[in-house]
């Protein structure tokens, strides 16, 4: 039994507004709401909503014979909440069919995996919770931002309890090997590795509407015939693509949605392939060998490495400066700072600073709000400067400052306690005067001869009250 694994990735960053250096320290809002909303609406209407509808129709027709996997970044979910609740709802409808698997990733679509293991874990956990909240689904398979993967990232992922990870079937890693098998991590073999078949994936994602391509036009039948040509022993075809491929990278007019609609039928009619989600593949297949990836790979550009995000000094400088703040942010509880921290981490901000832009133009220019990488860098660094200033105000720089903050906190706590005890004291005092007042009035009314008894009881009361006040006084001195 051979499977096709369809996986779609959904992400939109919070694009930053034009932020000049004189805004530093004055303006703490960093996002271009108009741009974010209009892009999100545009992509939602042209891509997400239509594609979801097509998938629902397919599932209606074939049931759970047809399966897909999604990974939606936390930031994209945040944007759905803000700008496109209808998209969120349509994903929820898809989730309810039970034919959809959701994968885990980093909340911010960040490159934190390269930098800080703890922060990496935290972000993945946050993303898990978000997926659980919206889709009532516990992801068991992980995919990192832009399919960035290395042996050590894999080991971290395994530690988090995931059974498998998705990455690129990069030529320079595979060599003569085929991406169409299940592999396992070189450090921790319990973690399975699914490799993207970049030829088949890019046939759809990049070449579909390219009229200069020798295979143009691509039909579902032709695609299935290519699947059939795969070596008989090969077990899985992993088609991992951006969800925006449908309707945005490849326009509606190119017939991409018709291709998607026709694909399951053609697969069932003309081949012995079935559809499977990453979790099922992990369950059903045995890893054929381990795969060694000593240096991080990704699915970007021709080189399939990190140069799209960390290829020049602009990017490395911004990246290092950002993550130098990790410890401080972790000591900070201010919700706005935490939120900005997440949004500033999006790998997209680094992507815009790529100088490969000059040669690899088209892909890099996609939804790029900047005219040049230098522009992108200046803007980002200005924002980061403001962010650091805010952070320093919240989390002081030196140890001495920290100590002062701690001491003031202790003093505040003690003052709170003292106030509490003072209130108690007041209460006891007032109750004492009340009691004595009541007694006196009673005595005045009765004017009986039981003076001795009265005096005795009064003595008792006062002595008890004295004891109590003594106790509270002691308490406050021990504090």
């Amino acid at each position, binding site marked *: 039994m051979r499977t096709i694994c369809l996986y779609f990735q959904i992400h939109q960053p919070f694009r930053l507004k034009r932020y000049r250096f004189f805004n530093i320290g004055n303006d703490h809002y960093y996002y271009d709401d108009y741009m974010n909303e209009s892009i999100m609406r545009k992509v939602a209407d042209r891509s997400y909503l239509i594609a979801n509808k097509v998938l629902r129709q397919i599932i209606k027709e074939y049931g759970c014979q047809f399966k897909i996997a999604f990974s939606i970044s936390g930031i994209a979910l945040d944007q759905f909440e803000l700008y496109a609740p209808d998209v969120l709802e349509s994903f929820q409808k898809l989730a309810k069919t039970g034919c959809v698997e959701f994968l885990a990733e980093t909340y911010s679509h960040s490159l934190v995996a390269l930098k800080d293991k703890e922060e990496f874990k935290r972000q993945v956990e946050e993303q898990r919770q978000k997926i659980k909240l919206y889709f009532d689904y516990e992801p068991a398979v992980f995919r990192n931002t832009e399919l960035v993967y290395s042996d050590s990232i894999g080991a971290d992922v395994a530690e988090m309890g995931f059974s498998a990870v998705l990455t690129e079937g990069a030529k320079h890693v595979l060599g003569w090997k085929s991406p169409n098998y299940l592999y396992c991590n070189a450090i921790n073999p319990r973690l399975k590795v699914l490799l993207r078949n970049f030829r088949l994936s890019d046939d759809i994602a990049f070449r579909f509407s390219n009229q200069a391509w020798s295979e143009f036009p691509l039909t579902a039948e032709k695609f299935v015939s290519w699947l059939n040509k795969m070596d008989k022993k090969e077990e899985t075809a992993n088609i991992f693509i951006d969800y925006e491929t449908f309707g945005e990278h490849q326009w509606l007019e190119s017939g991409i949605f018709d291709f998607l609609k026709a694909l399951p039928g053609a697969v069932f009619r003309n081949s012995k392939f079935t559809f499977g989600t990453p979790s099922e593949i992990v369950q059903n297949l045995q890893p054929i060998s381990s795969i060694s990836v000593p240096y991080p790979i990704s699915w970007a550009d021709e080189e399939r490495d990190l140069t799209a995000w960390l290829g020049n000094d602009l990017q490395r*400088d911004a990246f290092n400066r950002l993550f130098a703040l990790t410890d401080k942010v972790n000591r900070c509880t201010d919700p706005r700072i935490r939120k900005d921290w997440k949004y500033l981490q999006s790998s997209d901000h680094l992507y815009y600073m790529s100088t490969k832009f000059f040669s690899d133009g088209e892909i890099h220019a996609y939804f790029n709000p900047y005219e040049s990488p230098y522009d992108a860098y200046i803007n980002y*660094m200005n924002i980061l400067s403001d962010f650091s200033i805010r952070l320093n105000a919240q989390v002081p720089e030196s140890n001495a400052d920290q100590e002062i903050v701690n001491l003031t906190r202790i003093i505040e706590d003690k003052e709170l306690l003292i106030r509490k005890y003072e209130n108690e004291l007041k209460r006891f005092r007032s109750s004492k005067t009340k009691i004595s007042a009541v007694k006196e009035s009673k005595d005045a009314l009765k004017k009986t001869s039981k003076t001795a008894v009265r005096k005795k009881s009064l003595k008792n009361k006062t002595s008890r009250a004295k004891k109590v006040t003594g106790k509270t006084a002691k308490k406050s001195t021990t504090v």
Partner: protein
Amino acid sequence: MRVLMFGWEFPPHISGGLGTACYGLTKGLNQVGGVDILFVVPKAYGDEDQSRLSLIDAGEIEISRRFVDYKGFFRRIHFIEVGSSVIPYTSPEEYEMLMSKNEKGKRYLVNTTFSGKLAFSGGYSHNLFQEITNYAAVASVLGVTYDFDVIHAHDWLTYPAGIAAKLVSGKPLIVHVHATDFDRSGGSVNPGVYEIEKNGMEYADRVIAVSNLTRNIIIEKYGIDPAKVITVHNAVEPLENREMIKREKSINDKIVTFLGRVTLQKGPEYFIEAAHMVLQKMQDVRFVMAGSGDMLKHIIHRVSALRMGDKFHFTGFLKGEDVFQMYSLSDVYVMPSVSEPFGISPLEAMQSNVPVIISRQSGVSEVLEHAIKVDFWDIHAMADAIYGILRYNGLSKVLRRNVKDEVDNLKWENAAAKVKEIYESLI
């Protein structure tokens, strides 16, 4: 192939960008090979007087012809110097200097290349056009005397000469537009100059523009058929490998430089406003305005009104070695030109490894990638870019590494090869 080229100036007598460009282009053509150049320049540096030109009518033109060997590059270039009382100038100082000489010599001054408005000395203005016509008359004589295949005329003063040569010889004419009067005048175009420019472009078989920006002006403002207007971007001469005395920086403050004529066209006031903004946020920075011009007084007033005199320095007009030293001291070079047909100075800064910020309204921005481009009026963006380069090391590092490579790839040979193609298409 032989080219009759009309220029306005040529080394060693360079007063502006036009001379440099002609030098580079002819040198490039020489390297490409297969082109003989007959270069005609008005000779105005001697003590020529009015009477010489009047001789033209009598058919006795005084033409001096010389062969010059410029370090072996120009073996195939013939120089023809024509006596003329029209002399180009570019810097205000030079203007002053020439003006004082004028009292005796009675020469006409004309602002040729990239400077401000057309300026005439005294009441001779009506005669300037006569001079140009006379130069054209010389050209018509040359047109029959010499044998050539193409005529190439640089900038408007030589267009009538080009036309005259074309009319007598029937050979194709190319006019090379280094600047139009729209660039020089900031909008208030001199109708006489406009007429000459338009005429030249209309007579020409091909019009070469130094940038797409200029090409658009030629098409839109002069109504020239787009099919015959071709853009050939300028290039820059590689720095000679001579030992430069680099001046040691005596202060720790960063230095931001504006270098050029202080005239409307160059946008100095935008530089000042941007500087003011940067100084609000940064103290360890100084601004230098190198150059002079008719707006200098106004600029100095503005600087003092903004109370930043202690951080803002004026060097006056710089020349030769001083220019190079100014670049080597700079951390950022800014060219906020309002309208710049090409703009060679950022390239010179880049040769000294200086990151540049250039206005999008310049031709040079069409060929540069490793430069920060802003609209000249967008002082916020300009200030932000200055701040970014000074403050964020990553940026200055990347720019410094890339600018030199980029500028070294802008070779005159490539420009010359394109020009040669244009020649060939006409023969």
